[in-house]
């Protein structure tokens, strides 16, 4: 339970926006989205040499924001037990039933970890510096409709509130003697009602309030909307995007294949 909690906490932390400003906060969200795409491209290379280069580029691109590096380390250490367990499981099964050589299977698992590390730093850097509103703005600029995109904003906005509420409900029921850990599977599922029903009712009430607030605040009255901040793709965005794309290209073109 403690490991699961730590995993969820660190995973949630990776996706949380932070007020403390770093270099990434000043970038255009479109530049950050391109950086994310470039990082995903880098993570999908096959050879270990290229992955090593990709790892270097990914962390070098994130280095202007030391907070992102620290947070990535925090997230990866949280994920480490799960990655290690999965890797062990895969190695044992592959060697026992797949007939592959041990070194090949281990190398594949190392590559998996490197890919996770590349994606994690990019996701963390982008998530900690971009509000959902900025993502909406970026996608609206690309021609998407804001009404649908706002679902993302609302989801991110209410996730902490709903999690807090779940925790309060769990506390209230434990105070009445509820023990979810005891009994058989069916009994445990039945007991979960004590959490699910109040959570559902409270979420419905919250949804009603929110729906009314959206209606009273002009949401969806028009198919278009304005944005109070101008989204400008400036020189620094261009420079950063170019660097990210060049890094990806370098990984694919310039770095020799090495060990496949």
């Amino acid at each position, binding site marked *: 339970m403690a490991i699961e909690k730590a995993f969820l906490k660190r995973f949630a932390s990776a996706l949380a926006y932070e007020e403390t400003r770093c270099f990434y906060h000043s970038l255009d969200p479109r530049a950050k989205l391109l950086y994310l795409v470039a990082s995903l491209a880098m993570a999908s290379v096959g050879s270990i040499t290229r992955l090593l280069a990709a790892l270097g580029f990914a962390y070098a691109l994130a280095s202007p924001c030391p907070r992102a590096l620290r947070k990535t380390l925090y997230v990866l250490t949280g994920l480490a037990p799960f990655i290690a367990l999965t890797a062990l499981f895969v190695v044992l099964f592959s060697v026992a039933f797949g007939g592959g050589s041990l070194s090949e299977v281990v190398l594949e698992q190392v590559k998996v970890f490197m890919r996770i590390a590349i994606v994690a730093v990019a996701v963390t850097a982008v998530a900690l510096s971009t509000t*959902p509103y900025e993502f909406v703005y970026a996608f609206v600029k690309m021609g998407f409709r804001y009404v649908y995109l706002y679902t993302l904003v*609302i989801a991110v906005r209410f996730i902490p509130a709903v999690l807090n509420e779940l925790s309060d409900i769990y506390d209230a029921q434990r105070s009445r003697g509820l023990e979810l850990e005891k009994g058989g599977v069916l009994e445990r599922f039945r007991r979960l009602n004590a959490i699910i*029903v109040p959570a559902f009712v*409270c979420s419905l009430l*919250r949804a009603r*309030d929110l729906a009314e*607030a959206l209606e*009273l605040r002009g949401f969806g009255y028009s198919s278009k909307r304005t944005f*109070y901040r101008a989204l400008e793709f400036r020189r620094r965005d261009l420079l950063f995007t170019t660097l990210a794309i060049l890094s990806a290209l370098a990984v694919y073109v310039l770095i020799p294949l090495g060990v496949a």
Partner: protein
Amino acid sequence: MKSAIALKNVTYFYPSSTTPALEGVSLEVREGEFVVIAGPSGGGKSTLVRVVLGLIPHIYGGRLHGEVLVGGVDVAAEGFRAIVNRVGVVIQNPENQVVNVVVEEELAFTLENLLYDAKEIGKRVDEAIKALEIEHLRKRLIHTLSSGELQKVVIASALALDSRILLLDEPLAHLDPHGARELISILHKLCRERGVTVVVVEHRLSELIRYADRVVVLNRRVLFDGSPALAIDKLLEVGAEVPPISRLFIELGKRPPPLQIDSKAVEALERVIVKCRSTCTNSLGNDNSSSSLHSPSPVIAVEDLWFKYPNGGVALSGINLNIFQGEFVAIVGANGAGKTTLIKHFNGLLKPWRGRVAVLGKDTRSSTVAELAKSVGVVLQNPLHQFFERTALREVLFTLNNFGCRNCVDRALEVLKAFGLEDLAESSPYELSVGEQRRLAIASVLAYEPPVIVLDEPTAGIDYSLKLELLKMLTRVAEKGKTVVIVSHDVEFLALAPITRVVIMASGRVVASGSPREVLYSTEVLRDSHLTPPQVVELVKLLNLEKAPRPLNSRELVEYLRRCCNGY
């Protein structure tokens, strides 16, 4: 003055209801007025807000008769879209109405939806931030704000839109006294300096009423509509809260009652106390201080307790506290003082980071919540967080079953009867009124008879008559010899309760502990802890009556005056 809101003979039935929620309501609020709408729970106050906003009938359906004009617009006919930039609303739980993640984005949200250009939005957002003095919140994340800060953001958002009408539905329900005073003073300033029409629907009137131009008492119909001073009698009649100073004057038979402690009120009472005997200092009827009576070993012992949140913030720092059997302890403090964090250690919901908590001698770190809950029944703030069964009876049975009581229907029915809920045993908990839900929440914890009962903010969001009902219930529980711990910042309620000890908390520490007459008279400690002393205490201090046996509420002060002041 022009009319901001006008309701003409409005009657409303919710869908499939045969009883009207509002009946023949006629009401006019003029531009720039500060109007307070009070009345008992279930009296139609929130329905009135929905009618004014146009949510009724356009979203809620039902049958609406009569005319509703907001800023001259027939909102019943034209719908809420027609008044979207005229009215700003703050609902009871403003957290639910905020859409965005960052404060600045939230302030711009409505303007963006209504297609204002970026330059104009920036200007208006800056102005609203300046008006509410919330520059420090501009880049803050919404989920990190306190209730008071959140309300300011919602009001600023309405101001940015230049809404000339502000409608607030029970805005003080979850604020501590300091936060409540701050919000009221903001509303008053907006009304007087900017000419904004302010309509506040509220139970907590003690602080608010003095700022109102008019008070409307609503219980399906308009029972009263007039000046605050004249509203006191009607408010008392419907069981609503009035300022303790007003209650005192009414009890002394002096009219018109004042709305606040001012020089006139003090002078009037000085004329009474001139006739008092200086030797009259014998104690008041209910002196509950019982420090010498308790057993030697505490039921809850907290030793050098420290607690850290997962983010590293220290919530409790070195708390030392013993609670003895039969005590009625009030833990008092402003929002964020660490009260709830402390009581969550009493049944093991939280474990100490440093230090020790023992319940009946058992260390909470080595016991499960279920084991500790047998001794300490904790009722948390929101009753809706615990209801999930089909009937009220099953709710009580759920707790009894968890503590090993099988086939306990008779016991459950007995408990429901003790709480006046026997007729509602087969009703869904969600069909009950706010007061009944509160009673059921307490009943379902008391059912298994834990020796200690802890209640977290039991008076939040309930009206005065329900508070009195709760008070009676807690008094009965205390009289049975149970240990009662109540967490609250509602000092006026605590001044009425048979409390034996008050513990004041601030910034995660215990800053004072002692008998109510000792602690609630430490006005400086209270103010430093962002609390306000009971009005009667303030009055007694102004009258230099401290040698008197320190009354805490109007009833006790009247008792003193009757006993000691000839022919007042």
